Each structure stands twice: as structure tokens, then as C-alpha cells.
């Protein structure tokens, strides 16, 4: 939890974290190397200097690192671990549901481990969704539309094959679809970060919640427009968050847009761990106010304590059916400890 200066305890459900292995031993090719290198560049460029990690630790961090950074040094009460397979790039997958579940087994009450699938696998994708539900009882999945799969260099949420998968998700009660719009490669005539497929999928699958990570950035304008029309579209704040350090005014502009268009009930905090650690993000976020002139341009929206509490945990808790009061009691009884180093 985050403890405020006046002693209030704020429940933090970190909506976007990873347990990856991007180490050279796990890389299949240059793409695997370039993928983790790109993450590391994000880390080095948007972190405060005192938060920087060594490259080797960043490539492959330990289970103890996760527990310490999120729950002991960090303010997270719970974390959603997302799976990103990237099997064309990594021998054992970049972050697999099996490895994350094993990591989480010390304190399963702290984690929500989400699955992932690739609709281009056709029947196999459907079988895999069944497997993830039966084996791990997943409540959500992470979709990475820029993933390579043989000759294909990306896919869209409204592809027919994807719709078959979402129908199955709906049927099995896998309600939360986290969408990461990476740069899709082809066709080149399309804007690589285009978010319009979210509009189709969210309209056609009203029972599912569509959480668009990075709040659609760098297509925030299109995303806000879509999210305003659809009641089941949410914005994940991963990647937008760290701007709070280097460019706070700019962060204020993003928050003003999101609050104005989408509203306080549909924004979810995410640290994007291990790209960033949650402690400094949450500390800075709790102290943050949208500058007056920016707020005035958007009808006076502001990040009140009540709204911050929703963003930091209550909104995600609602999507994942977490009873926050009961959860707090449970967590108090099972404190996280790691062996002294």
C-alpha cells in the first residue's frame, strides 16, 4: 500500500507488470536482442538516475527482485503479471504464463497472472485458451498486436480469427483483454499504431473489458475518441506514468485529456515493471497536481485524492473482482519476506 503523509493507506493494484527473461541465453536471434535492448532504452531514458539498473539485471531479474521491488520496497498490494510470448524471438518465450505462475506461487494472493494467445494460430489458439483457463484459471489476457508470427508481422483485433478467440474468452469468462498496440509492420500503408480496431472489437464484444495499455499513445487523440463512445474501454497508464518525472507538465496534459474524455473510473495505474519500479511512480503520482492552466482548458479536471485512489487500485480491483477490504485483511496476515542478501 501507499501510505500518505497523513497516514492513510492507499490500496495499490499495479495493472501492468512483467516477469521476463530477455537474457542472451534465451534470445533466438537479433530480434530478441533488439527487443530487450529497446525496453532497456525506455528504462534508461525515462527513469530518475538513481533508479537505473545494470543491463544484465534488467535482462533477467530474480523472483526475489520482483517481491522486493513491488511489495517490500514498493507500494504494490497486488500486481497483474502480463504474458508476452514472442516465440519467434525467444527460445522459452519472453514472459510465459508458466514461469510467471511459478514465480507467483510464493504469494499467489498477491498476483493476477494473465495469459496471452496469438489468433493467427487458428485452432491451436482456441485450444491454448482452454488450456490457460483450465490450468491457470485466467481472468484476463494480454494481446500484443505487433507480434511476429512467421511471415505475418502483425494482426488486428477485428481479424476474423481474433473474433473466434474473443468469443471463446467471453464464453469461458475471461473478461479482461489488455491490448498493447505496438508498431505493426505491414501493410505499410497503414498507420502502425492505429487503434481503430479497438473500436470494432469493443463494440462487438460488449461483455469484455478492453484495457488499452499506454492509453493508446502515441494515438491518444484517436483513442480518447473511441473510449468516449464505448463504455467497456479502459486506459492503462503504463509508459505514460514515467513522464511524471522528466516532463511533469506534459504528464499533466495527458492526465487532463484522459480525465476529460474517459473519466476517473476507467483509468488504471501500471508501472510496467521491470521497465520501471512502482515506488517512485506512486510517490510522485500521489503528490501530483495537474497545472491550473492545463486543467482550465479541460473543464477544471483535477487529480483529487479520491480519483488517485481509484486509479491506483480501485478501478482494477473492480475489473478483477477483488474485494479490497477483504484483500487488505488477507495481505496483512501474509506479509512478504525475502531471505536476507
Amino acid at each position, binding site marked *: 500500500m501507499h501510505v500518505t503523509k497523513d497516514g492513510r493507506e492507499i490500496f495499490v493494484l499495479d495493472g501492468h507488470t512483467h516477469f521476463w527473461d530477455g537474457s542472451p541465453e534465451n534470445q533466438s536471434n537479433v*530480434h530478441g536482442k*533488439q*527487443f530487450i*535492448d*529497446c525496453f532497456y*532504452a*525506455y528504462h*534508461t*531514458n*525515462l527513469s530518475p538516475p538513481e533508479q537505473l539498473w545494470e543491463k544484465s539485471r534488467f535482462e533477467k531479474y530474480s523472483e526475489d527482485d520482483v517481491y522486493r521491488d513491488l511489495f517490500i520496497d514498493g507500494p504494490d498490494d497486488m500486481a497483474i503479471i502480463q504474458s508476452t510470448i514472442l516465440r519467434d524471438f525467444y527460445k522459452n518465450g519472453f514472459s510465459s504464463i508458466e514461469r510467471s505462475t511459478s514465480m507467483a506461487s510464493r504469494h499467489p494472493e498477491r498476483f493476477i497472472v494473465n495469459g496471452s494467445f496469438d489468433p493467427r494460430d487458428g485452432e491451436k489458439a482456441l485450444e491454448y485458451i482452454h488450456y490457460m483457463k483450465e490450468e491457470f484459471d485466467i481472468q484476463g489476457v494480454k494481446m500484443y498486436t*505487433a507480434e511476429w508470427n512467421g511471415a505475418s508481422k502483425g494482426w488486428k483485433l477485428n481479424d476474423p480469427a481474433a473474433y473466434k478467440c474473443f468469443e471463446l474468452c467471453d464464453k469461458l469468462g475471461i473478461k479482461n483483454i489488455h491490448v498493447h498496440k*505496438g*508498431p505493426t*509492420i*505491414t*501493410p*505499410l*500503408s*497503414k*498507420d*502502425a*499504431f492505429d487503434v481503430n480496431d479497438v473500436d470494432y472489437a469493443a463494440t462487438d464484444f460488449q461483455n469484455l473489458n478492453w484495457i488499452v495499455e499506454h492509453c493508446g*499513445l*502515441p*494515438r*491518444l*487523440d484517436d483513442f*480518447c475518441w473511441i473510449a468516449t463512445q464505448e463504455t467497456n474501454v479502459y486506459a492503462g497508464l503504463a509508459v505514460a506514468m514515467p*513522464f511524471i518525472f*522528466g*516532463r511533469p507538465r*506534459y504528464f499533466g*496534459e*495527458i492526465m487532463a*485529456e484522459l480525465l476529460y474524455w474517459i473519466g476517473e473510473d476507467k483509468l488504471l495505474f501500471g508501472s510496467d515493471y521491470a521497465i520501471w519500479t512502482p515506488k517512485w511512480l506512486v510517490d510522485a503520482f500521489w503528490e501530483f497536481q495537474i497545472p491550473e492552466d492545463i486543467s482550465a*482548458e*479541460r473543464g477544471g479536471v483535477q487529480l483529487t485524492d479520491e480519483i488517485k485512489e481509484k486509479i491506483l487500485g480501485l478501478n482494477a480491483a473492480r475489473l478483477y473482482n477483488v474485494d479490497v477490504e477483504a484483500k487488505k485483511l488477507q495481505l496483512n496476515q501474509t506479509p512478504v519476506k525475502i531471505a536476507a542478501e
Partner: protein
Amino acid sequence: MQSDILNKELETEIWTCLEQVTDPELDESIIDMGFVERVKVTQDKKLVEVEFRLPTYWCSPNFAFLMAFDIRLSIAALPWVQAVNVQLNDHCFADKVIEGVNGDRDFSDVFAKYCDGDDLNAVREKFLEKAFIRRQETLLLGLRQCGVSETDIVGMKLETLDATSFQGEEEAKQKPRYRSLLLERGLAAQPTDLAFRTWEGDPLTVAGLREYLGRLRSVRINMEFNGALCRGLQSTRYKEVQLSEDGPSLIDFIQNKVPLRPAEASS
């Protein structure tokens, strides 16, 4: 020796020429962004070689294509140039971009292969609009900050804008860029034409100005996101580049890779 000096002069001319090539998504010069790594002119053949690199391996390939072709076009337009070779380093689509830009086929031909028969003009057009919006917003906000009334802003003539001098660095930089795009698109031609119109050509209104500026702002927020990330990512990536043993060259100075002497650094 003399030909070495001449080559250096020609290379400087190429660097200057490339300042006009922009990253379509950021509306920033590829030189300002530090994307161009090497320019080499071979005297006898008048062959110009350019190497560029983007902030990440994953930067959108369509923009990589556009930049590569724009580099080729802008250099080929120089009268003394006989041949151009463009290399893109460390990019997931590099081989296809290099093959496309240095081959005989024209732009639309190369693209058709990767666009399901479509062409790239729709994307180019969309990002030209975003560039227009960003340049225009800078000027509108600058005028408002100077205390120009909303009525005067929406009714401002091109000649009045021309006569306005901005104190801010960004406004001063964007003014000629906005103006050239405005004229290029036929949104204004005469000194007495309106200085500000929407991309679709509609005049602005006092009643609608606030909402219009809101629209422009959200476009700018996206572009700033990309710009901030690209600058940051690019600065890390280029740290790997070592200075050659002959000491810093022109490019090292252009890209700020030459460390300042202590006296300069502290001033």
C-alpha cells in the same frame, strides 16, 4: 588533398540539404534528430552515400521508407550529384528499405508490394495534416500569449502574421514552416488572405476557437510523446558509436558527440 577539401565542402552541402528532410511522424528534421550517421562523397563518380539510423530497431517501417526516399530525392535534386546510395542501419526492415530505395523501381512500385496494392499517400497525407496542426497550434498559442484577441486571431491576414515577430524560440522556428505548408496547400496565397484556416480550408471562428485548440492540443500531445521518446532513445543508442581514431569529424560535432572542454561545459 585539394579533392579532399572539395569533398568536405560537398559533404557539408549534403548535410545542409538533409536538414529539409523530416521524420513525418515527428515533423522534425532528421538532422536535428541526429538520425543521419554518415555522409560520404566520392569525388570521381560524384556518388553520395548516406547512412541513417532510427532510435529503435522497431521504428515504423513505413516512416523509415518515407525518410529513405526523401533522402534520396532531396540529394538527387542537387545538380552535381550523379548517384545516391542510402543505407539504413540496425532496423528490422532494413534490407527491404535499402533494396527499395536503391533499386530502379519508383516509390509507389516499391510500396505496392508491402501495402496490399495500396499506396502510402494516405499515411503521408495524414501526417502532413498533423505537422500542419502542430505548427499552427504553436503560432495560435503564441499569439494568445502575446495578448492578441481571439477576434484578431481568427481574422488575421497573412501580411499581419508576416509582420509579427515572436519572442519564443519555438514560435520563431515554426512560423516559416507553417507559412510554407499553408501556401503549398493553397490555404492562402495573397497577403490579404486569412493566416489561419483549418486543414480542410474552413476559416476559424471566435465561438469555435477553444474547441479547435483542444483538437490541436491532442494531436500535439501524441507528437510530443513520440518526440520525447525518440530523442531519449536515440541519445542512448548513439552512445555506442565511437569516435574514429582520426578524432571527431563534422558529423560528431553536428550530433553533439564531441564532449565540451571543461571551461565550455561549466559556462
